[in-house]
């Protein structure tokens, strides 16, 4: 039933067209995002608008109401003029980059709106169609758009694959690629044309105003998730296509009408829903990215704090068991004396360490370190005392002041640094407080 509905011509056109447009925009968007010119995508989509208006009028005058050809030519012309304008403003007139971009954006958009209002009275049908271009009308796309998007996608993929080296070199290091003639003006021109055509085609579904989200969000989201360019392209394309599809499906299946006459109870226009889907995916990536996601970092920090807590407990147990008296097990009351923390935290830590086989709990509640626990405890104390010695010998810190620093450093010194310190301090036996430094051991 669901499958049948997807392939129904009413849903089929918007669904596949938006998916393909999403993939297409995401891939072209990589170009824009990695040239650090994200705003340029927005500006170009607005700059297309007056050209589309003029092109539509010309098409209508020639009786070719549904022809995309004139619309494309018109949009290409004004987008090119817009891009040229930006260049002239920035390089010849020394206007700052964002001022130039804002100027071209506002100017071309208001020109488009002016043209539209001029034809409001003369060509009301055309006017309505052009108004629809502002916010997009995904629902009325037919199979024709699926074909157009598919063909364009194939062209873009072909160019992207064949010229991948040139494009990447140019994105990363313009000077290098210029000297080596890797990226020629011809290739740049082709990329620009493909960018503008993608924008024009996607405007049909997303509208002039929201179009740049389809261009930028997938690439930006993918950047949060991976560092590999090839993987990034794949993820961006998936997000683009997925966002388009989810947007269409969501706005289709979740919109419901109450009553027979279609009185809307929940109205979800497709274009904005697609944009919101991208935003949602971006927010998720921001929070949960395995690299640098916000939540990932919070979790890491919590884990680190917990590890420090466990290690402090471990140190205390080791000192009681192995260093001082001959007891092999320590009562929990004694631990509470030495390590004043809330008892529930202590209990939780004990449970954790028991699971990790670092200590065992006797029937009477006494805690005993396992061999692994002894090993780890010994190492911690060793690191602590090595560091104290280093601070005293090399940084000339008074030995009364080295303890707090060592308390922190013992948790983060790596084996490599440990070896370096051992060498530097000539395999020391005693720390500044005349306590013995446990010997280094191989891995457990």
């Amino acid at each position: 039933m669901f499958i049948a509905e997807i392939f129904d011509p009413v849903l089929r056109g918007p669904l596949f067209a938006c998916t393909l447009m999403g993939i297409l925009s995401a891939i072209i968007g990589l170009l824009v995002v990695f040239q650090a010119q994200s705003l340029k995508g927005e500006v170009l989509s607005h700059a297309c608008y007056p050209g589309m208006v003029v092109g539509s009028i010309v098409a209508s005058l020639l009786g070719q109401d549904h022809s995309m050809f004139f619309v494309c030519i018109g949009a290409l012309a004004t987008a090119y003029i817009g891009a040229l304008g930006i260049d002239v403003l920035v390089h010849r007139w020394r206007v700052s980059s964002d001022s130039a971009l804002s100027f071209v954006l506002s100017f071309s958009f208001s020109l488009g709106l002016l043209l539209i209002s001029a034809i409001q009275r003369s060509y009301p049908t055309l006017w309505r169609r052009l108004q629809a271009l502002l916010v997009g009308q995904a629902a009325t796309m037919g199979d024709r758009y699926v074909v157009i998007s598919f063909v364009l996608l194939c062209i873009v993929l072909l160019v992207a694959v064949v010229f991948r080296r040139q494009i990447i070199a140019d994105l990363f290091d313009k000077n290098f690629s210029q000297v080596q003639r890797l990226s020629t003006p011809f290739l740049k021109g082709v990329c620009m044309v493909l960018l503008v055509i993608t924008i024009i085609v996607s405007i049909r579904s997303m509208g002039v105003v929201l179009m740049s989200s389809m261009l930028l969000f997938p690439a930006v989201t993918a950047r949060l998730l991976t560092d590999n360019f090839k993987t990034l392209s794949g993820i961006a394309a998936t997000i683009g296509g997925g966002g388009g599809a989810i947007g269409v499906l969501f706005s289709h299946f979740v919109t419901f009408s109450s009553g027979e006459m279609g009185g809307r109870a929940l109205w979800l226009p497709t274009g904005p829903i697609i944009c919101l889907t991208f935003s949602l995916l971006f927010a998720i990536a921001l929070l949960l990215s395995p690299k640098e996601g916000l939540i990932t970092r919070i979790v890491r920090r919590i884990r680190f704090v917990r590890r420090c807590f466990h290690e402090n407990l471990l140190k205390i147990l080791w000192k009681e068991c192995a260093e001082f008296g001959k007891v092999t097990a320590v009562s929990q009351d004694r631990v509470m004396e030495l390590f004043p923390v809330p008892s529930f935290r202590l209990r939780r830590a004990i449970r954790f360490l028991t699971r990790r086989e670092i200590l065992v709990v006797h029937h009477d509640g006494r805690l005993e370190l396992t061999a692994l626990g002894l090993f780890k405890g010994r190492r911690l104390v060793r690191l602590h005392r090595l560091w104290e010695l280093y601070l005293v010998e090399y940084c000339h810190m008074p030995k009364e002041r080295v303890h707090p620093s060592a308390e922190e450093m013992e948790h983060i010194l790596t084996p490599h640094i440990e070896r370096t310190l051992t060498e530097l301090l000539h395999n020391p036996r005693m720390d500044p407080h005349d306590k013995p430094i446990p010997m280094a051991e191989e891995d457990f």
Partner: protein
Amino acid sequence: MRRGWIYFVILFLCSVGCQEAGRKQFNSWLDENGNVKILCTTVFVGELVQAIAGEDFDVIVLIPPCSDPHSYQLVKGDDEKFRRADCVFSSGLGLEHRGALARYLSLHNAVSITTQLEKEEIITDGTTVDPHVWLDLSLWAKGVDCVVDVLAQKRERDRAVYKERGERVRRSLLRLHKKIRSLLQAIPDDRRFLVTTHNAFQYFSRAYLARDEEWLSGEWKKRCRAPEGLSPESQINTRDLYAVVEYILEHGVSTIFAEHGMNRDSIERLVDGARSKGHEVSIAKEMLYSDSLGTGVTHIDMLEHNARIIAEALA
């Protein structure tokens, strides 16, 4: 291809015609000739008022006949019209809801033609009121009384004249109403289903396509359907198109209608959708008038034209 050319020519002439007529009219309307100046929002209101008013009043219409009244935005010169007008008539029921226009109307105490309608006669779509009353002549005729009242207030001595004219107008409207009704009721019951571009024909369907008992029971709602809502600027959703396709299949609709000045994309999607389910639907060759008129087309012509096309197509 040829059809495209004709369409364009009509559109072009319409636009040129509307523009030219508009300007000349406005200038002559401003002449100080001692007449009472009346401003009407839509052309439908204007024709009604003009038919009753006669020589002592100068009537001008604010929204050009070819423009869409739902989304009309005030332009330069409109505030002059408002200032000069001695009284203002509007269509009401939320048709002129665009911010500035609504404000001007309330500022100048515009009289709404549709104030006489009973609550049961007004169609609501949930919370929004359907303003397309001019497509039901019996309801539109009810506006005669309030027009007569307002005009008589301006010219008390001619009250009887206006009353008489009003009666004549009402009678002719109701005559046409009956004629259209009998024409459309002649279509077999199982074929009287109207699918258009936007939801403008509720009053029309209830008056002319539904049976009497359906009016009372509320079942008349099944007689018409459209993918776009009351105002044609609303966004279409695939769900809407889907629902209309199901409607078409359910009632075996064979012809659907495009409207003047509206995008045909949604209608064409309906054809594709129905075809995929094995049901052939065609789009009527001639278009209906709904929110606007063409040049030289009056309100009466519009209804006759619509009725004729529908009768021919659905019979």
